[in-house]
């Protein structure tokens, strides 16, 4: 494999991992964000602190913790393995790492959006006979769409950029777990690898800028619709 081909392979894998991570994390993050924004319960602040933890811990540590929790020898990892879900040394492990690392960002964006929704609108929907789930789907969800989008973009960007936890948890297996950041890092560890690294940094930047531009355009559309323009 030429190093060029390896870079494209890494890009493909990074996109794949980032998309999966975003798709899987959005509903979960939304749920946690909703709980944090709208429910009151004992330990709520602790839950919030827990969600923030991956921000604070060095990614290596998160990687080690994942390894201890989901590795081949860990009970949880074995259990998942027995039902056909392999995480160790598999791209799905990279997805898990990306989800966890991006989770604080996604939850916070969505939570802020939910907190900004006037509960009186939800009350109005209730008086019109809408059951809870419909209130969420037809009132809350569309109103927080910009926040979800913001969270999704942050999660996606983080997933594209995640390196430390991923390599510690699932190592660096070309085509499986060698994401773009791993490849960039590797290139930088070799004297004279800068050019290759720069090329891959460009790739990552283009993807990220593209994702942000798309999300900004979508958000603008939503805002314009509400303003009636």
């Amino acid at each position: 494999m030429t190093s060029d081909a390896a870079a494209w392979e890494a890009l493909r894998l990074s996109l794949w991992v980032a998309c999966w991570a975003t798709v899987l994390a959005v509903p979960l993050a939304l749920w946690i964000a909703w709980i944090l924004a709208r429910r009151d319960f004992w330990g709520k602040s602790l839950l919030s602190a827990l969600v923030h933890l991956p921000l604070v811990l060095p990614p290596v540590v998160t990687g080690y913790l994942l390894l201890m929790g989901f590795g081949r020898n860990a009970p949880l990892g074995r259990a998942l393995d027995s039902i056909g879900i392999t995480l160790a040394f598999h791209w799905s492990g990279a997805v898990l790492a990306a989800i966890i690392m991006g989770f604080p960002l996604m939850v916070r964006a969505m939570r802020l959006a939910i907190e900004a929704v006037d509960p009186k609108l939800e009350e109005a929907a209730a008086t019109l006979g809408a059951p809870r789930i419909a209130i969420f789907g037809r009132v809350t969800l569309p109103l927080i769409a910009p926040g979800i989008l913001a969270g999704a973009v942050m999660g996606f960007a983080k997933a594209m950029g995640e390196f430390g936890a991923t390599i510690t948890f699932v190592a660096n297996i070309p085509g499986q777990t060698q994401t773009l950041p791993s490849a960039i890092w590797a290139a930088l560890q070799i004297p004279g690898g800068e050019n290759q690294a720069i090329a891959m940094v460009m790739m990552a930047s283009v993807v990220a800028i593209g994702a942000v531009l798309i999300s900004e355009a979508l958000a603008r559309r939503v805002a314009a619709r509400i303003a009636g323009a």
Partner: protein
Amino acid sequence: ERVTVFAAASLRGALEEIAQAYPGDVSLSFGGSGTIARQIAAGAPADVVVLANTLWMDWLVEQGTHIIGAPQPVAANTLVLIGPKDAEPLAELNDLPARLATGRLAIGHRDAVPAGTYARQWLEASGLWNEVKDRLAETDNVRAALAFVARGAVPLGIVYASDAVAEPAVKVLWHAPASDHDTIAYPAAALTPLGKTFLHALTSPQAGLIFAAHGFQAVIQ
């Protein structure tokens, strides 16, 4: 006056002990060899630099970095194949692929991590490379490869002898012959006159003893 030493992270245990014995104040900053080399090139306030691989030292010299004297190796190391502490001994190296079964072989990144490069050379020399190259778990540093074996995430790994010594959860299954890979040397260079003194201390016999105690091989001047 304080001596600042930028050193490869795998030397940490030994260097800390040497620094303690050193009469002056010593500040140790650990990182990956590539990172450290670039930092030195960017003007890091280091008096001494110790790397885990000669490639980066050569690169530093090429960059025109101001070095007092010539770089010199302060320690050497050997490579070992390890398995979990209850592993059966390996009858011959060619059993390695069979022992891996469906598992993976943990090594440092084949190009980015010096230990990984040495491991690749060894495997190539012993004709196993093609058989295992798609069954590797490459890590961003050799300690992570050790951890994979220690945690049972992989059945086998190739690490420095110095790492294997200190980890009770693993067992050495095979020693790599020194001829099968480039010399595993830790080259050091003094960047300032102050550093020159410390470099002396690094190459002293006392230092050699400490290196040896941490599983390295002392370099005989």
